[in-house]
């Protein structure tokens, strides 16, 4: 069967509005006509999928949206997802020559979204399966890599069968994009179009559990490994297995695909700590703000300049009221022990045990939380338990009631 699990209509992500609203036709035309159509354009070079950006923008400007969409999809069959979630500020739009004129760069992402949405809304079709070649390919993992590969295989007439361990298609495109950037249905919309090319998906099939690679190699002409990055890394610190500590990937996936009731405990969360300084941390802190968490703090072990998260996302997070504590070793201390060898521990109001039930970080009134300002003298690499590197990888700090099950 090829139909992905349906999304729950009451899932939490539906609370989020588009951070970058769609353009209407008049806005898109005007913006497209503003593009100066660079020759050998820097935006194309900045696009990881090499979309001929001036070419598709010119087609929007001439009211030839069909050609615009085709131009995009020829380079990137996930043109809609990418339009909504690409960090255009550092890619195509960051490379726009208008930046050098101190003009606002062309909103390439929004124009791309306009082109594809308009084409899809009008049910335009762009590709047909090729003449059957008699060859078949197995693809492991139903994420964007496998779907993009399967689409290409179908164009050439090869059979394409995807094996997916979960019940939902689209991989991180469906389960991992911050909802104010893109909702899961956008991903499924693109997946559906690829499925219509005759791509088959076998759900509940996991490599090593009920899928044998040796057997696939024998049965298929080729095997494509589209396995993705996997689950959240483990947080090797005291308190990490507390029920209201969760990993970002798991948290976002629940918000995007599950019934709101699965995250019902979030309703009472007033404060939250996000550990890490990368883009997932920046997504997570803005998601928490979007869900109504009053105080959201990002704790990052190094300084602002060292943060790997995008500068523009950092700016927006600040604007949305997220607090950033730099040079702090984010971590939870559950009664008694962790980080006791840190010297300059500071108790933060709102994250301390004197506000039982109010602070998201606190499970009960005996729990408390510490943020250490700056590394202790003489320590540069490892904290207690060798935890600092792990902390960096553990990007979302979130506390939940109920199940103590770790994400994975």
């Amino acid at each position, binding site marked *: 069967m090829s139909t992905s699990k349906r999304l729950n209509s009451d899932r939490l992500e539906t609370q989020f509005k588009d951070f970058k609203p769609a353009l209407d036709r008049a806005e898109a035309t*005007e913006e497209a006509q503003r593009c100066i159509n660079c*020759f*050998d*354009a*820097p935006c194309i070079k900045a696009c990881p999928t090499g979309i001929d950006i001036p070419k598709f923008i010119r087609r929007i400007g001439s009211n030839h949206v069909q050609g615009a969409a085709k131009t995009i999809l020829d380079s990137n069959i996930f043109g809609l997802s990418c339009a909504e979630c690409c960090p255009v500020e550092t890619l195509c739009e960051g490379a726009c*020559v208008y930046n*050098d*004129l101190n003009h606002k760069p062309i909103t390439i992402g929004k124009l791309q979204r306009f082109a594809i949405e308009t084409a899809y809304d009008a049910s335009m079709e762009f590709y047909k399966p090729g003449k059957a070649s008699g060859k078949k390919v197995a693809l492991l993992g139903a994420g964007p890599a496998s779907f993009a590969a399967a689409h290409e295989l179908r164009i050439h007439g090869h059979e394409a069968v995807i094996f997916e361990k979960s019940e939902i298609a689209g991989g991180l495109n469906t389960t991992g994009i911050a909802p104010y950037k893109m909702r899961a249905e956008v991903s499924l919309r693109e997946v559906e179009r690829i499925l219509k090319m005759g791509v088959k998906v076998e759900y509940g099939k996991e490599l090593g559990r009920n899928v044998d690679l040796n057997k696939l190699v024998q049965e298929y002409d080729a095997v494509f490994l589209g396995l993705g990055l996997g689950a959240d890394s483990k947080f090797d610190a005291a308190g990490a297995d507390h029920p209201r500590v969760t990993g970002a990937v798991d948290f976002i996936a629940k918000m995007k695909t599950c019934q709101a009731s699965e995250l019902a405990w979030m309703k009472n969360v007033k404060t939250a700590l996000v550990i890490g300084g990368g883009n997932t941390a920046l997504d997570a802190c803005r998601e928490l703000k979007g869900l109504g968490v009053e105080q959201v703090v990002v704790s990052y072990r190094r300084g602002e300049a060292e943060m790997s998260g995008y500068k523009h996302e950092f700016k927006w997070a600040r604007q949305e009221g997220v607090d950033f504590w730099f040079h702090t070793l984010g971590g939870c201390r559950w009664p008694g022990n962790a980080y006791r060898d840190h010297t300059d521990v500071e108790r933060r109001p709102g994250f301390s045990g004197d506000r039982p039930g109010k602070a998201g970080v606190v499970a009960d009134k005996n729990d408390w939380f510490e943020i250490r300002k700056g590394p202790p003298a003489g320590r540069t690499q490892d904290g207690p338990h060798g935890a600092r590197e792990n902390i960096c990888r553990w990007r979302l700090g979130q506390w939940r009631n109920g199940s103590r099950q770790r994400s994975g």
Partner: protein
Amino acid sequence: MADLTTKFLGITSPNPFWLASAPPTNTGGQVMRAFEAGWGGAVWKTLGKPITNVSSRFGAIDYAGRKVAGFNNIELITDRPLDVNLKEMAEAKRRYPKHTLVASLMVETREEWKDIIRKVEDVGSDAIELNFGCPHGMCERGMGSAVGQEPKLLELITSWAKEFARVPVIVKLTPNITDVTRPAQAAKRGGADAVSLINTIKSIIAVDINDFVPLPKVAGKSTNGGYCGPAVKPIALHMVGSIAKDRLVGIPISGIGGISDWRDAVEFMLMGAGNVQVCTAVMHYGYRIIEDMVEGLSDYMDAKGFRTPMEITGKAVPNYKEWGELDQSYHHVAEIHPEACIGCNLCVVACDDGGHQCIAVKPEVRRAPIVHEPECVGCNLCELVCPSPGAITMRKTERTAHHH
């Protein structure tokens, strides 16, 4: 603030900006509001035998996101009774005596000209303008551009008007002719005190590609209209200039054609216009644009040391030459200034495909292509397409043997 008082044909206006005969001068209420806003004069919507207008009447070209770069109309002369117009003209002149009121006229027979000229003079018109320019509808009835395209007929009717009129007579010319100096000369021979130009250019503004009907549509059909607005300004500037330098004409010119702001107006005056008339920009933005035109002209005059607008008239005419009179030994080449270049490479592709293949991307750097000077003919296409102010300029140089 410079003194913008302008004398044209002995008529004094507060400034050189008149409203052209068109929808903005259709009624007394409009004209009085325009005077109130600051317009120096108004040429009333053309009077003649009553007609019926159709709907719709207008079409426009939008270009690169800007509305109404070019404008087209199939509206005829006034569709209001003559006595109503006359009554309102009298009122406008009575209430705004310092502002110039010109009657635009279009009738057929000698008797009709005699009759209507007397009537408009009686209500206080400062001048009359003979509409020999309208290229749609009226010309099918032997009037408008049908007269403007026949110099002999134009001369005859002009002489009738001069015979009957006590106020100055302006002949409004059509651009729908091979050489506009011919009808201008005919106007002069007929005794005209001035010419005004251009009237609109015969046009079809667009075609609906879905139902195959040109625009504007009237019950599923269309007809050619008259084209005006910013797009026609270069055509009008040429025609004004060619009449200004024609010794066989030698009468004042009222400049018309796509004038939207004070700078456009200055350009027309430099090319020989004694004053200017405006329509499309007012139809787009309203009478209020006069404020900027007045202030802008005043500041320009102060900066340039002009004491009256009349001093501007014709200043550029001596510099408008025949091609054969140009200095063929002069040479300049493109110079790209890396500090201002944004690296769009539009100059590269323009020079490659539309120029003389002398600009190349410098492979090792993103910015600032290089000009191969010996190949540069100085066409300045690159300068024109460059979006970054000052990134490409033309530098005077010696012409090398290569260019001969």
